[in-house]
């Protein structure tokens, strides 16, 4: 059925486009369309990019912390988890976070396997790294082929993400281009801009409808 | 400069003072004004309701009229009818000689305020109007012809006129041609919102560039007992709008 449908649909498209070509004519193909308007942040330096990033994301209620090296970042994450009263914590498989896990146990946290969705529903917090940040939009970029954080960043009510300060790119187009490897897109690329939100009841904003109620970003790197 | 004035059928039959005002304004701006009584209606009611066969003879009538006028510009005291003239080419197939003639006409057809400000470069016509007025952006003038600043500039130069912008000045009044009688309750609900905005300005007059919108707004204002009156921008620019105290005592 689907094969016949394919031929019918493509045939109908071609027939209609042929009629259009005979009538009013058709525009050139995509390649004839010039480049998109250039974003002003493309000329910004790293410091300006981080400032722009924060200016975008902080008004959405996201806490952004700036620290020095990775150890400092992990120490801060542990402090934030304690402050939030988190007991069970899911951590992605990022190498940078392996130390967080071991010391976490010492610190009295209970670790949850990042792939165990049932356990994740009971976790208090999820921690992962972001592969990039986007200054234009204040977004985190999560590439699921690089780290197991698809569910860690979604299911627990608190999501803490580490972001290296050199990984803040100017705009969406750059982030998308960088996400391709030899023209190949990752299995899942997730852009995250703030906590889960809804305004479906009388347009009143409520955070944490399905995904995390709170998002914190720890920017690190000397 | 010779201009052919197309007063539009509504002005001609229902609100002739607007045509008279347009003549005065154009003459005071130094134009020689011609009016061809053979041109009746632009055909918009039929065109907008889907009856192109009935609109086409009107397009031909106006195109011929303008071609015979020898005028440099066609001027209309209506954004809606001027926009209709800009639609004329769509009534004729590619290759039909009428299409080229329609395009040539469309290029020379201007709404009054746009003509004064953008073509003649005139914004002060020496008029006086001691009243509080609020401006309603008629949709076709605003969105088809891009007239937003022109009428405001013209009104800004009218002596003793106080212009108070209403909320949602660019919101539709709900007229919409046959829409106003096909869906009368809906059309009225939309104009009620406009009347609310007008009332909030406490204006003596609501002013616009299209008689059709003015009939809709005026019709509802009168029915709900408002004292705000509707006048056309040409009447204001021609100094034909009296102070309200004068009117009430008259």
């Amino acid at each position: 059925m689907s094969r016949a449908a394919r031929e019918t649909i493509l045939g109908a498209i071609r027939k209609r486009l042929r009629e259009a070509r005979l009538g009013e004519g058709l525009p050139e193909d995509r390649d004839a369309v010039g480049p998109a308007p250039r974003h002003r942040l493309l000329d910004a330096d790293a410091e300006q990019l981080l400032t722009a990033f924060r200016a975008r994301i902080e008004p959405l209620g996201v806490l952004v912390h700036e620290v020095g090296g990775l150890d400092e970042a992990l120490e801060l994450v542990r402090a934030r988890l304690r402050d939030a009263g988190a007991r069970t914590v899911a951590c992605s498989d990022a190498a940078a976070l392996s130390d967080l896990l071991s010391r976490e146990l010492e610190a009295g946290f209970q670790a949850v396997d990042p792939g165990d969705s049932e356990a994740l529903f009971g976790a208090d917090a999820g921690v992962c790294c972001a592969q990039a940040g986007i200054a234009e939009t204040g977004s985190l970029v999560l590439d699921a082929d690089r780290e197991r954080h698809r569910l860690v960043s979604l299911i627990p009510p608190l999501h803490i993400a580490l972001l290296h300060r050199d990984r803040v790119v100017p705009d969406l187009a750059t982030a998308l281009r960088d996400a391709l490897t030899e023209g190949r897109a990752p299995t899942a690329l997730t852009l995250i801009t703030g906590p889960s939100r809804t305004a479906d009841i009388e347009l009143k904003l409520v955070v944490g409808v399905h995904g995390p109620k709170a998002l914190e970003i720890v920017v690190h790197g000397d | 400069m010779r201009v052919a004035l197309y007063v539009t059928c509504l002005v001609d039959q229902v609100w002739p003072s607007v045509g008279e005002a347009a003549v005065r304004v154009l003459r005071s701006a130094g134009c020689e004004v011609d009016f061809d009584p053979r041109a009746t209606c632009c055909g918009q009611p039929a065109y907008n309701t889907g009856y192109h066969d009935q609109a086409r003879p009107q397009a031909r009538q106006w195109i011929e009229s303008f071609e015979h006028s020898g005028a440099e510009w066609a001027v209309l005291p209506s954004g809606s009818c001027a926009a209709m003239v800009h639609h004329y080419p769509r009534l004729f197939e590619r290759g039909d000689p009428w299409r080229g003639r329609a395009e040539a006409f469309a290029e020379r057809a201007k709404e009054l305020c746009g003509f004064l400000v953008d073509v003649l470069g005139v914004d002060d016509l020496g008029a006086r109007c001691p009243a509080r007025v609020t401006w309603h952006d008629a949709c076709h003038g605003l969105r088809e012809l891009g007239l937003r600043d022109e009428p405001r500039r013209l009104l800004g130069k009218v002596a003793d006129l106080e212009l108070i912008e209403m909320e949602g000045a660019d919101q539709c009044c709900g007229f919409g041609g046959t829409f106003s009688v096909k869906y009368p309750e809906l059309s009225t609900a939309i104009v009620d919102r406009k009347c609310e905005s007008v009332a909030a300005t406490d204006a003596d007059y609501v002013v616009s560039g299209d008689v059709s919108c003015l009939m809709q707004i005026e019709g509802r204002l009168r029915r709900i007992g408002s004292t705000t009156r509707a006048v056309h921008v040409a009447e204001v620019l021609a100094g034909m709008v009296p102070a309200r105290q004068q009117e009430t005592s008259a």
Partner: protein
Amino acid sequence: MSGSQLPVERFDANARDALGDPVLRGALRRATDLFGERRRAAIDDVGADDFEALRDHARAIKDATLAHLDVHLERFVAQAEARGAKVHWARTGDEACELLAGLCAGAGAKTVVKSKSMTTEEIELGAALEAHGLRSIETDLGEWIIQQAGEVPSHIIVPAIHKTKAQIAALFADKLGTDPEADEKALTAAARDVLRREFAAAEVGISGVNFAVAETGSILILENEGNARFTTSLPKVHIAVMGIEKVVPRFEDLAVFLKLLPRSGTGQHLTSYQSILTGPKQDPSADGPEELHIVVLDNGRSRFLDQAVTRASLACIRCGACLNACPVYQQVGGHAYGSVYPGPIGAVITPQLVGVGKASQLPYASSLCGACREVCPVRIDIPALLLHLRQEVTEGHEPSGSPFGAQRRPAKRGERLGFRLWSFGVRGRLRYEWGSALARFGQRLVVRGGYVGKVGALLSRLAPPLGAWTGTRDLRGLAPRSFRARWRQELRHQELRRQGLTPSGGER
């Protein structure tokens, strides 16, 4: 369980009912005002000039893509298949529903979670799945509320825009046993708990597609709540349903549309989440579905391609901006349109999908004010489309082989006769002048003090178009003396005197 649309044939009656509902109108006004304000602020934030440039660019991409749609679709399908996705084609909504039900059965599904998708609403997938014995759960909060109430959505972006918090609280109290006084936070929390259990249990997740990328075979789904992320990452099988028009050529093109869509729709600079998905998971230890199916749906869309004016409607990115800007939508809301696609874009898409004979009132459900075109992020000339469809209603003929061949267009005998008479009357100058003289005489029956007021309105009911006006509005009567009479008698001569000529008495 799912509700049904009001009759698409009766916009007039549906609209009248809506106008009689003050709660609905209050909610609509608050919502459309708020979205309008937010949209303006979100545009100021990028700079108006930059936003205009983005709109031009987005439309150019859409136009160029639609002009070679077959090539881009085939490329998309080839790339998606190369990444392990299974692509299915469906000519009609029924075909798509059968296909989806089959896929769900193949996955052994009992419960299906759905994220918000206009396309699945269009084909009435929820009802079809339930008819196959499946539990189909809408997971967008607004959609879920609507599903619990047994209604249909009334807005593209905010499906439950027509319901108040009190109505929702009462509904939840009835269905979930929550506090009937609960506020929006408590109601949302209650829904979160229920839906988390559904996500955990569902074998299949069904989503729509906002954009499909030919270059990489990827699909993009954008949202704020996170339910689409759950739907596309937790169940073992993910099925995405997309119309043929969703394809864009390049991965980078997504950036342009992501800048436009949320700003135009909700006034956000970006929604909380974008999921850009390419194939099912390859690594067994990764998160995500084991199978990804993509259903490519025509359902009448290919018919829009042959003319530029109709082809433009396939550029729509379903942002909802035109709904919020439309003075008609602002008054009556989405249900009155009797279609999944309400508002101005619905008034042009629906007749093309279901036939102009059936939806013949929708092209007239507009004052042609052009506010929709002004806000459309891809610059669709909706008024031009409305005019085109109005002509289709009055003068069009169903081409042979049209799926709507059996549909009759409304006769509109009275209107047609009216316009013929009108045309006869305005075509010649004398006829026009005599006709207006006759009308001037006749109006003396109803005009008092220059207007048809409340009293004249009673009598004018006998002439339906006149009565339709005067029921709620006074009508300025014909002036005692027309402009042309004044021109002949005075104004013209003033001009001649100015030129130093004397009136000759002759007229042109």
